[in-house]
């Protein structure tokens, strides 16, 4: 039932808005709204009940295991939320003077410094509001760098075929042509293809390492040399930073610019699809082009770095300073973990992934890159199973929902057929992983004994398989009252 269907004309929550309608008005008649606003007229209790019930139709980290590759679904500590929501932080206006926000700015400054040190970059700006915006900002800085040198010939960005879809989309949004390069049979970028692709037209290479195939790009140093020698810059998509945190720094791998998805490595909540937050880090030569604002420390006080300090900045990419509340949550998380805890992120994410990979292999699943270590994630391919039984990766994914597990990422990366990208994250216990393996084994048996049942999954959710084709053909994007 939609919230609108609970609505009754004239129902109102008296404590939530002014008791008497204000009469003083200077708004000209011709600008006043004549049509009705179709917000529901529902009681506070019915509202609370409606949205509580809706929440119960969701899977979430707080209720289920999410082995969702490339997404890093791990525990979001409650303290990060409650401390970021202290009333003084919530009530602070973004344009309030700097001296009324020294506590907040201290947190932001320290977060910048910590991110710099763990990534090996020379500068960090916290403004990007999501991974894709971090990418956009990163690629904009690459463009600004080349143009500042009078080099306008660099029109291409190289992207491996295993990359996240945001990489090529970002390059195009930034006005670049995308050149895709292939991956070899072991999951590394094809070096010869890269060498053939670079030239005076190369603005840069965007790379995720470990890659979306869940393996460490062994040739990264050589790739860095090839791209730099051609005059291009290296972009690090920090989506998988959690796999190598404390082991290897993007700065040491030769990257010139990176973004860090805080909702992944630094455990800020996914919130059903956002808000994200993705600070960008840069090497020395890109410092002048960083987006503003940035926080500077002078003596014991903090202030915003603005256009005046950075005249070559690519500018502002949000109305204020990005997703401040998300940044606070990440700061609190980092301080709770401390240095040792930061090292353990990659160590235990990798332990969990390799253990789960070993156990699933023993259970009879085919691993896409069996000769490689898993990073924090790995790929199972269902190609043989599909060829034999007609059951697809998507069918298995939906059947997992019935077993109380969120599905792994399916059909990404695009180059492995019928793939399941599985990432357990470091906060899951061995028992949870073992129970997941038991369910995966059960599904293998079900695929043998009752394939049609598996194909019809899910069976226990609030709805069965939904008609996507109908949704796109007969667009129904907004509720309208019946006439």
């Amino acid at each position, binding site marked *: 039932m939609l919230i*609108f269907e609970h609505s009754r004309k004239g129902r*109102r929550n008296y404590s*939530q*808005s*002014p008791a008497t309608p204000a009469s003083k*008005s200077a708004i000209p008649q011709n*600008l006043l709204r004549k*049509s009705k606003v179709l917000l529901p*007229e529902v009681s506070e209790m019915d*509202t*609370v009940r409606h949205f509580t*019930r*809706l*929440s119960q139709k*969701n*899977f*979430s980290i*707080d209720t289920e295991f999410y082995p969702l590759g490339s997404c890093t679904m791990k525990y*979001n500590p409650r303290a990060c939320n409650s401390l970021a*929501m*202290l009333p003084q932080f*919530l*009530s602070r*206006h*973004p*344009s309030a*003077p700097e001296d*009324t926000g*020294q506590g907040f700015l201290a*947190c932001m400054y320290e977060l910048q410094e910590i991110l710099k040190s763990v990534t090996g970059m020379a500068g960090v700006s916290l403004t990007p509001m999501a991974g*894709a915006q971090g990418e956009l900002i990163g690629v904009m800085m690459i463009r600004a760098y080349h143009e500042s040198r009078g080099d306008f010939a660099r029109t291409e960005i190289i992207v491996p075929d295993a990359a996240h879809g945001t990489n090529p*989309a970002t390059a*195009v*949004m930034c006005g670049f042509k995308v050149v895709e390069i292939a991956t070899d049979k072991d999951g590394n970028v094809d070096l010869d293809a890269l060498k053939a692709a670079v030239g005076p037209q190369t603005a840069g290479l965007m790379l995720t390492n470990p890659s979306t195939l869940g393996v*460490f790009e062994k040739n990264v140093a050589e790739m860095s040399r090839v791209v730099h020698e051609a005059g291009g810059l290296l972009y690090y998509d920090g989506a998988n930073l959690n796999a190598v945190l*404390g082991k290897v720094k993007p700065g040491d791998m030769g990257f010139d610019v990176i973004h860090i998805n805080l909702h992944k490595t630094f455990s800020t*909540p996914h*919130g*059903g*699809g956002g808000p*994200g937050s993705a600070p960008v880090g840069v090497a020395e030569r890109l410092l002048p082009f960083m987006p503003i604002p940035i926080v500077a420390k002078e003596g014991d006080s903090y202030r915003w770095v603005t256009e005046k300090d950075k005249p070559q900045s690519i500018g502002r*990419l949000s*109305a*204020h300073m990005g997703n*401040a509340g998300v940044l606070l949550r990440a700061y609190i998380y980092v*301080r*709770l973990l*401390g240095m*040792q*805890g930061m*090292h353990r992120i990659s*160590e235990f994410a990798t332990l969990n992934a*390799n253990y789960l990979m070993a156990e699933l292999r023993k259970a009879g699943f085919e691993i896409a890159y069996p000769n490689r270590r898993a990073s924090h994630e790995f790929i199972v391919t269902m190609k043989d199973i599909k060829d034999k039984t007609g059951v697809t990766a998507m069918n298995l994914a*939906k059947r997992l*929902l019935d077993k109380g597990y969120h599905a792994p990422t399916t059909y990404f990366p695009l180059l492995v057929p019928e793939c399941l990208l599985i990432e357990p994250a470091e*906060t899951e216990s061995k028992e949870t992983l073992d129970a997941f393996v038991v369910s995966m084994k059960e599904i293998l048996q079900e695929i043998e004994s009752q394939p049609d049942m598996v194909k019809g999954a899910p069976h226990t959710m609030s709805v069965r398989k*939904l008609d996507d084709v109908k949704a*796109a053909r007969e667009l129904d994007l*907004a*509720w309208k009252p019946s006439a």
Partner: protein
Amino acid sequence: MPFIPHTEEDIAEMLASIGAKSIEDLFDEIPKELVSGKLTGVPAGLSELEITRLMMERANKDGFYQNYIGAGAYEHHIPAAVWQITTRGEFYSSYTPYQAEASQGTLQLLYEYQSMMASLTGMDVSNASMYDGATALAEAALMAVRSHKTSRKILIPKTVHPIYRQVVRAIVSNQKIEVVELPYDTKTGQADLAAISKTDYGDFAALVIPQPNFFGVLEQVDELTDWAHSKNSFAIGVVNPTALAMLTPPGEWGSKGADIAVGEGQPLGIPLSSGGPYFGFMACKNELVRQMPGRIIGRTTDLDGKEGFVLTLQAREQHIRRSKATSNICTNQGLMVTAATIYMSLIGPEGLRRIAAQSHASTLELVEQLEKISGVKRTFSTAAFHETALTLPKPTADVLAKLKQKGILGGFDLGAHYPELGNALLVCVTETKTAADLQNYAAALKQVLA
């Protein structure tokens, strides 16, 4: 080990299963020369008790002020239920609703949100939100250019939020789109319609129309919309969602209505919190829906014919279309929209109208009181919504600094962005201020200016 449940026994068993001697072995594919040492830039970990003390100290340092700053972020009452429900784990810690059957809560909520925003803006359809108001406007500009076919030019009056104009420029210039700024009338504070309609801007893709504008002033939206349409261009409205409860929505501007409506959603239940996370909203006419960026939710049916909700029109998006997507945008501001949907449900149509009317009336009331102070006058002659520019007899920065000492954040200094206005201050009042608060502000300003 914070948030890591492994016992020594677990670790040993897991390594045995993998066939590795140590956790360190699992990183043996990383070339030795790249391996870094300890993360010495990170301080030692704190207990929850210790981090609580630290954050409380910092929060207390920032304290509380009586706030009269608006300028794109507005203080409103937020019902307690909004964030109590929003931070339920099932909303807070859920993923993007790609697995529709396991995400019906989020998907239905987003459909309800889209319905509310479409009605509020007077448009046909809304997406599931953008990052913030500024980026929503930039995306609207890109969308207009994609849909227009012949022009890569956008007209933006200087009465649009100055930072929004900067953000639009930063984003669209990557695609060689030209941004032309239009003049405003320094007497009325409105986009200068007379001057604009006499100028030949050539072919352009869209005109941006703010309502209210950055000065709080109400624009001649009907005339501006019709003018844009007469030039075969799109009209993009940038609107305040609270104001829409009182003001004609973009979908009804002029004879045909604006084509795209965007804005900052923060006033709908999102705390000020130093600037984010907020959310941008975007709504449009049916004809443009396939050019709209971002997630869109549709209502459909399941195998049994039961109603359900899915992400739809995904062929526009980066995870399917890669380099041919309408935008690189991946996330929406899911949790913020959750809060906004609960807020709009609790407040209802009459509540939102009263909040808008009270904010407007209290602004009038404060301005009347302040105008009685010698040397203070309204900067513009035209009606405003809940923000008004005032011209002061002393430098704005000095006045604001003295008000701050009295615990009052007196408004936004217009000098940096509009030096031609002299000592100008933008003051905002919402329903959160009482009559006593307004008297207190007036008395404080009088003292400061004495």
